[in-house]
């Protein structure tokens, strides 16, 4: 059953969810936010990707900062870059690609090759979070254009390299289940307990999340201990 437009979740939250459920709840339930070097660098990179006019290069239309949504997946967001390539063999003069794309019927568009490209500051991650985010964008584009998208790409700023991402069955099903988990997390509104891990070092929310102090530490015991210590000092 499709989700109503009023209930769409941010695509970026999928990435937060896969990185850390607590981070996701802090950002999207508690509306907590903090910047660090990584988030600031990421913003600069995204702004670069979004900035500038859409253009046509090598017979390909490059659209930037496209708003997207999928009612089936129940998400919405913005794609950094989407490439539109007309069907091979079709002759398209330079200037007319944009208007032809605009005028294209769903049937015509179905023949085009549509490729979302997402910009990331660092390098490829071990987890699926970037791929899932990209796949969610592809699912949006498929729904909005009536096309089938077999592949997208992730561009990693540090390596200055584009990595192709095939949207296979596995990735599509991870994306669907991530959206379900996200919906459940935000619906419950409960922030999961903090667990200190290595990846916490890169998280800008570390000083707000306080994983060390929040984990299995009793504030009640702290109060008793402090007060007893003061009483002992007295006698």
């Amino acid at each position, binding site marked *: 059953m499709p989700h109503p437009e009023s209930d769409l979740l941010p695509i970026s939250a999928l990435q937060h969810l896969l990185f850390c459920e607590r981070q996701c709840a802090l950002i999207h*339930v*508690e*509306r*907590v936010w*903090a910047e660090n070097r990584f988030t600031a660098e990421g913003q600069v990179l995204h702004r670069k990707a979004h900035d500038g006019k859409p253009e046509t290069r090598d017979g390909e239309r490059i659209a930037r900062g496209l708003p997207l949504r999928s009612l089936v997946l129940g998400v919405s967001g913005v794609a950094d870059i989407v490439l539109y390539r007309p069907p091979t063999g079709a002759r398209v003069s330079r200037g007319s690609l944009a208007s032809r794309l605009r005028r294209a019927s769903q049937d015509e568009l179905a023949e085009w090759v549509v490729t979302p490209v997402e910009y990331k500051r660092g390098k490829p991650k071990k987890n699926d979070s970037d791929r899932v985010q990209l796949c969610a964008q592809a699912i949006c584009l498929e729904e909005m254009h009536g096309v089938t998208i077999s592949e997208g790409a992730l561009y990693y700023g540090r390596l200055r390299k584009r990595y192709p991402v095939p949207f296979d069955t596995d990735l599509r099903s991870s994306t669907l289940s991530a959206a379900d988990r996200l919906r459940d997390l935000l619906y419950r*509104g*409960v*922030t999961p*307990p*903090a667990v200190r891990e290595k990846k916490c070092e890169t998280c800008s929310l570390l*000083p*707000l999340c*306080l994983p*060390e*102090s*929040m984990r299995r*530490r*009793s*504030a*009640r015991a*702290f*109060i008793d201990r*402090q*007060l007893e*210590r*003061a*009483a002992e*000092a*007295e006698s």
Partner: protein
Amino acid sequence: MKTHLNTLFITTQGAYLAKDGQAVAVRIEKKTRLRVPLHNLDAITCFGRVGLSPQLMAACAEAGVSLSLLSESGRFRAAVVGYSPGNVLLRRQQYRAADDEKATCEAARSFVLGKLGNCRTVLNRAARDDATGERADRLSRSAKRMGASIVEAKAADSTDRLRGIEGEAALQYFATFDTLRTSGGGDFAFRGRSRRPPLDRINALLSFVYTLLMSDVRSACESVGLDAAVGFLHRDRPGRPGLALDLMEEFRPWLADRFVLTLINRGQVRPNDFQTVESGAVLMKEKARKDLLVAWQNRKQEETTHTFLGERCTIGLVIHLQARLFARYLRGDIDAYPPYLWK
């Protein structure tokens, strides 16, 4: 984390604050006297007749700089707060807890234990560090009574009972308060707390410093998304910032009271820094108030180790951290609210 930055105090009557790029420009008689970049500021506090441009208000809200308007004598009038979609679930949790007697009692217990624990430490420290003979005895006796109140507060089974214990302990503490003073003689004698108006010099100092502390605690509550008006130990009363008053309790003895005593003990305030008006009310003079603001600002920049979190931070930041800890307690991350217990 919100780092603790400077507070800009504006005390010149008739000053006008405007946005100048990403900075605040302070204009006095149409001349720009000072420019401070907003990213260097934590708060702007205006006393009395100070004008502000709407552009500056918007820029402060966006940059997370809290902007408060106080009367010339330091009474809180208004704050400019930005649109905060914030954490509605946190606020709901706060209201639910405040409506629930058991939860209210547990939160109130932490606030009372924080206050009494810190009162005891203030008394004990003074007894140990700079008192001998009869004076030291009086201080330790008073500290012991705080200890007894702590035991009672731990066992108290209702919020009303906690309020009673806190009230009695406060009377007891202020009965010994003058003993904490090591200089100033009769000019700074303290004969019990008087607020509206303060009837002696030390009460004038206490009231002013409590107002400054209150502004900071209130801003901290708001910046973590708590409703500063809905208290636990302090019952709701329209216009009264109950939660800010609750959270303030643990700071009063070690941050505000010690600060006032230090000013007196070190001779940093003098008897003629004050004036007595016809009604008997004692007010601080303009110059003394400015000096005090500078000293308060410096005090907040001093570093300490947070007793619960175990991290180094400035004293000004401790206020924000405590508000954050209270929010985390309400959200169920910790089993109690750990007040900042001074060692």
